[in-house]
């Protein structure tokens, strides 16, 4: 009913309101109270500046049915994000205090309070503003003043609503909460009909609360979790892959390095046969000059490099060369790949990672030696059945087929 009058539907407008707020204020930790089937959370998970995303609902079945929709998808693994992201879903009541809900940057409570018994609202206020004490809170609820504009509506908008507040009632409640817990509130809303009386306000009224006082660290950060009671039940806990995970970072960077090493090697093979020896002589020379200048800084070495390049041809020492079956690539050359640069941040960091990896060696003159595996360049002869019985690969590396919808919807 309401959805047909507004485009986009008013529930989408509410979510877009939150998304816009998130885009502008970039909160790191967001919790959605009354997350129900997690529609808002599923939208918010694309905003990777958020590092912790939590949802609370009293109904565990609705969460269980939907929670896997919040799991990372393959692309999250293929290109891990820069920021960490943890998603937690809890079963619990918003009138209970759970230490894990403390210290959030944003608490959202979208069309939730009207489902509470009126006498529980004070408890809710106390828990959200006094206990959770987030930096900001977005609280929306139906505007009873707007109800006459909704066709065919008698009573409340939903049979499970315990109350619906007028603009004045909502604002009185909000201002009281602000006075008590040190917040300021701004009133707004979503859903208006063309030509309506402006004073009626929005279909959904929204209060955006901002904390005035900064709290002492002890009370605002969760931490003493172990000592307190945990009334919420954790139903779902997932950590998204991100570059903050050291293993993932290492792997991603090394993949990039080895890919570029291979690309450079291939490029080199095209021009092979020219100046291999030349390159090695240059390396010696570089070493000599380096020893004269002593412990150079990175930038200093760069200068030397540039100077050298000026004296040599295009296939100077900046180019990779082969030593036996390994490929040698000057660190500076690897560093010049934008993706490698972006991942590692500093040359020093890159070097540390390289020193850690058994697949490469970093020589004293900052050349990266990509060690050859035991493979040999081998061509398959088209007419000799060399691998006739080793067909294991083509089976396991089956090309994928489109998703077939096997699943009978779980409802």
């Amino acid at each position, binding site marked *: 009913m309401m959805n047909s009058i507004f485009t986009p539907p008013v529930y989408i407008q509410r979510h877009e309101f939150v998304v816009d707020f998130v885009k502008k204020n970039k909160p790191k930790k967001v919790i959605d109270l009354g997350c129900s089937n997690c529609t808002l959370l599923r939208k918010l998970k*694309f905003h990777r500046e958020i590092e912790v995303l939590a949802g609370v609902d009293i109904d565990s079945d609705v969460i269980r049915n939907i929670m896997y929709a919040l799991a*990372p998808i393959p692309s999250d693994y293929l290109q891990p994000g820069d920021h960490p992201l943890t998603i937690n879903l809890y079963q619990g009541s918003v009138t209970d205090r759970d230490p894990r809900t403390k210290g959030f940057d944003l608490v959202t409570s979208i069309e939730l309070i009207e489902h509470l018994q009126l006498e529980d609202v004070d408890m809710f206020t106390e828990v959200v503003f006094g206990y959770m004490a987030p930096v900001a809170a977005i609280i929306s609820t139906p505007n009873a003043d707007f109800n006459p504009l909704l066709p065919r509506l008698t009573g409340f908008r939903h049979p499970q609503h315990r109350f619906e507040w007028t603009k004045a009632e909502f604002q009185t409640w909000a201002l009281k909460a602000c006075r008590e817990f040190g917040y300021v509130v701004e009133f707004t809303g979503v859903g208006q009909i063309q030509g309506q009386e402006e004073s009626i306000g929005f279909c959904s009224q929204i209060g955006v609360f901002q904390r005035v006082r900064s709290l002492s660290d002890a009370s605002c950060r969760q931490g003493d979790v172990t000592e307190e009671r945990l009334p919420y039940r954790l139903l779902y806990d997932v950590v998204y892959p991100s570059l903050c995970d050291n293993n993932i970072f290492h792997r991603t960077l090394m993949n990039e390095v080895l*890919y570029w090493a291979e690309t450079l090697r291939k490029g080199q093979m095209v021009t092979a046969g020219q100046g291999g020896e030349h390159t090695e002589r240059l390396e010696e020379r570089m070493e000599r000059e380096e020893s004269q200048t002593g412990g150079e800084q990175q930038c200093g070495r760069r200068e030397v490099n540039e100077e050298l390049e000026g004296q040599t041809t295009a296939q100077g020492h900046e180019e990779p060369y082969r030593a036996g079956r390994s490929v040698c690539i000057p660190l500076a050359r690897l560093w010049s790949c934008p993706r490698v640069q972006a991942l590692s941040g500093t040359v020093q960091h890159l070097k540390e990672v390289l020193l850690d990896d058994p697949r490469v060696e970093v020589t004293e003159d900052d050349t990266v030696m990509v060690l050859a595996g035991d493979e040999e360049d081998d061509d398959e002869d088209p007419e000799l059945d060399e691998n006739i019985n080793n067909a294991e*690969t083509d089976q396991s*590396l089956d090309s*994928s087929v489109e998703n077939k919808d096997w699943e009978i919807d779980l409802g």
Partner: protein
Amino acid sequence: MFEDTCIEGLLEAAIVMQKGQLARESVKTNTTSIDGEQAIGPGRHNHYYYFFLAVDDICNKTFFRILWVLLLLFCISGSPIDLKANFFKILSRPQWVLYQYHVDFKPVMESRRLRSALLFQHEETLGKARTFDGAILFLPHRLHNSTVLYSETRMGEKVQITVTLTNELPPTSPVCLQFYNIIFRRVLRMLNMQQIGRHYYNPTDPLNIPQHRLTIWPGFTTTILQYESSIMLCTDVSHKVLRSETVLSFMLELRHRTGEQGFTAACTKELVGLIVLTKYNNKTYRIDDIAWDYTPNNTFKRGDSEISFKDYYKTQYSLDISDDHQVLLVSNVKKAGPSGRPPPGPALLVPEFCYLTGLTDKMRADFNIMKDLSTHTRLTPEQREGRLNRFVGNIHRNANAQAELTTWGLNFDNKLLSLKGRVLPAERIFSLALWHLQYEYNPWQADWSKEMRGIPLISCRPLENWIMLFTPRNVDVAQALLQTLNRVSKPLGIPMQKYEDRQESLLKALQQNVNPATQMVVVVLPSNRKDKYDSVKKYLCVDCPTPSQCVVARTLSRQQALMTVATKIALQMNCKMGGELWSVDIPLKQLMIVGIDCYHDTAAGKRSIGALVASLNHGMSRWFSKCVLQSRGQEIMDGLKGALQGALKAWLKHNKCLPSRIIVYRDGVGDGMLQSVVNYEVPQIMGCIKSMEQKYEPKLTVVVVKKRISSRFFARIDGKLTNPPPGTCIDTEVTRPEWYDFFIVSQAVRMGSVSPTHYNVVYDSSGLKPDHMQRLTYKLCHMYYNWQGIIRVPAPCQYAHKLAFLVGQSIHREPNTNLDDFLYYL
């Protein structure tokens, strides 16, 4: 003949009886559905069970039971072996039944979601375990025959829901099996595995091949089916190849390589047919086309308003498009729209948000990539068993997974299935036409290249008029090859021709030097560039039919291997000209074996190529080969009918009579095509045979050969889990009750786990014992002349594969009929 023990003689009567039964049953298999509609008792193909059935008919049980035991002990050839297989039994409560209900809503509710919500308001009646698709409800327990429930919508509307029991499904019913698979998928998702395509993969511990930007996720293929005596989960380790680059970066790199000119064509060739994974949801799409005139700035209709792709992704997923000029990808979505509406039409995808999966044809052809991949993905039997056990262990340990299974009253066995197999006896290899020279091979290695040394072949073609072509750069290797060839065969006087390393000059050299009297053309190729090879084969298979032998110079450059290579080349050349290398004892007379395979040319015009290879003599050493090109959508057998008639005529010419038995090994049948082989191809084959002569009715057997299966077998030998020895035959437990099927591990592998071959006899009027069918199949795996050992399929299948591949990859036309009697495609 087969083992002539006196016991067998004693039991002859019993066998005859069993044969009769078998023939009846095969016809039944042929005419009834293969989809396993009904619950089926013990295996019928497997002849001792089988015999047991027949015995029951007769009532004289005790006597025949004894006979049956004797049969088990003596009649079946091969020595028993204890095996493990990658199957886990499904344990359900006894008398487990799945209840199927029909659910009606009054008034009618449009939205499926709403219907579910309304129904699930009655958890106290329905219970926690339930599956509902909007109309059909499955529960593990029984409600009253008809239950009426009342719910209320959010709007306060009262809805009457009637739940009517429509079916009680035993565990073996197809619906139930599908249901098991669905439950199992839920369980996999609970283990945090990622679904890509049909299977589930573990993304947390990827293998990387950074050189090619490949990421490999280990995972599992799983299917739950009714096997011989129980419902089992068949699971195998699978690997998914993903690319850690987007389609956009792939396109940019390709453009960089090809330049603007060739980009469009190259891009279409490389991308069309690939499966991509989108960044914003968990769906895969097949690229069907590229929309060259669409960019992210184009708009599409969303609801009532137009929105650009750029804005859509921005608002919907907060994803920014960095390149506004990228062209979009087109995917034809086949799946029907919501509530049965027709498919929504093609989906347009933004390359920047698509990741490539799988391998391109080009990568598949790249030997180095494939080698890298196989070193990562190949697992020894012990590693494989370890992974499977860990997998099932994880299911058992995961609380959520256990809860899901328990609510439905299901569980899995926690260890691999143990079963018995038999190792068929090793064959003796005969070398002279007179059969008096024979040798044996090491049964574990299944290779007789050493044993063959110094033993004359069955027949040798004299090589009098031949030429060798090579580039000036390869003079040395060509000379070396010639010398070694002279050493391995008898001295040959050969005129040698040089050719320039250019395609035109290679062709010109062929045109100038090859004449009808030329018996053989040897070309030393400077590299394995496909175009050169293709042009040689095209000219010599179509325009100027002459057997030819190509060899890449690199293969000859390794001094220490030259002797082996030259021997192989000499043997290969001999075969191509009609020579015969060896044979095995075939204890059936007037038998023609036919092999059929096909090749699907995805690149050029989507044509299919069907190849048929048929034996011409008793020793299975001479073959008739024919290849047909089919346009898309045409049944492969339509074209091969003529080929089969040609084969029968050739047999008639060679043997002065028509064969009294024909056994067709049909390879290249996909999972979904089995039914069409039975319903369409078998009658076609029969019709084609009948048309040869009036009253000509040979005994016919049609066997579908399948190499790409997920069944694996392991043997425990000296306390270690190893591959089963070549010749291992399995026809119990893991076979299907509705089929006459068996597995044979015929080949030996040096690395990784061996992959068994599955044989499914879909039609049989031969009256052959299953044991003899199995042994004959195994014998035929010895007969592929380009490999001095046992291969994984019967030789005619491999020949047909080789022929179809050559035509599909290189020639693209039907080869000249003058070559029909030669194995020119080796």
